[in-house]
């Protein structure tokens, strides 16, 4: 048995700020990813939360898609 197999079910034990605190980072994080810049280490706890929380992961994917769509729209 590996930790990976349990992590998938039980989440990781790293610092996880939870959904509400994670929302403070989601917009800045999506812009960094959309630009293709390296993600600073101060996002580590937020990324732990994304790994543990499917709803926040989906919302982040949604916001990233929106950021990219709006950029494409401006470029057209």
């Amino acid at each position, binding site marked *: *048995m*590996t*930790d990976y*197999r*349990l992590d*998938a*079910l*039980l*989440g990781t*034990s790293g610092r*996880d700020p*939870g*959904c*509400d605190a994670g*929302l403070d980072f*989601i*917009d*800045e994080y*999506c*812009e960094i990813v959309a630009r293709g810049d390296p993600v600073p280490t101060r996002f580590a706890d937020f990324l732990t939360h994304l790994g*543990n*929380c*499917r*709803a926040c992961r*989906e*919302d982040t994917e*949604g*916001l990233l*898609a*929106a*950021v990219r*769509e*709006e950029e494409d729209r401006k470029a057209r």
Partner: protein
Amino acid sequence: MDTLALDAESAAWLHGLQDHSGARDGTIARLHELLVRVARGEAARRRARLPARATEEVDDLCVQAANDALMAILAKLHTYRGSARFTTWACKFVILEASARLRRHAWRERKVELDDTIWDRLPDNAPPILERLEDDQLIGALHRAVAAHLTTRQRLIFQSVTMEDVPIDVLAERLGTTRGAIYKTLHDARAKLRLALTNAGYGEHAHD
């Protein structure tokens, strides 16, 4: 307000929304148009995951999400600090509103209840995560840990989210609480289970 240096477009949005002359109404209308567009984009992105019957009324949900997001944005305008562009900050509100509504809409005809038969159904109907655990004794150890260490509410939330893929927004609505509170309960339940499984000799998880 401790605001970072804003890009010109974000500054213009902020100025337009804080302007108490007639220009404010026009800015609000443009913002609402953006929010509806983003909500519809999110609905389109998620459409494949919605049951066929749930695709009705989706456009109404998008407009409702945009309306509520607009109210939240105007109420929280003073908290915008410029760490992201204004439109990205604003879109965050409508993505959260739209996605929560869409998840709840998709689950509106499904029950959420504590169902311990899920453990018996695992061999034939296991989510991918659990299928990988089938070959050893871990499922049995996990079941025992859930029964021994979690409260009824923790069991309901842990089993619903991790074993039956119930979205936490749906649980929050059905249990009359917030998404953050549901996640906190899930987080605490997971920590208990990690500790119990580690003490039982499974895995090498660090304790929270």
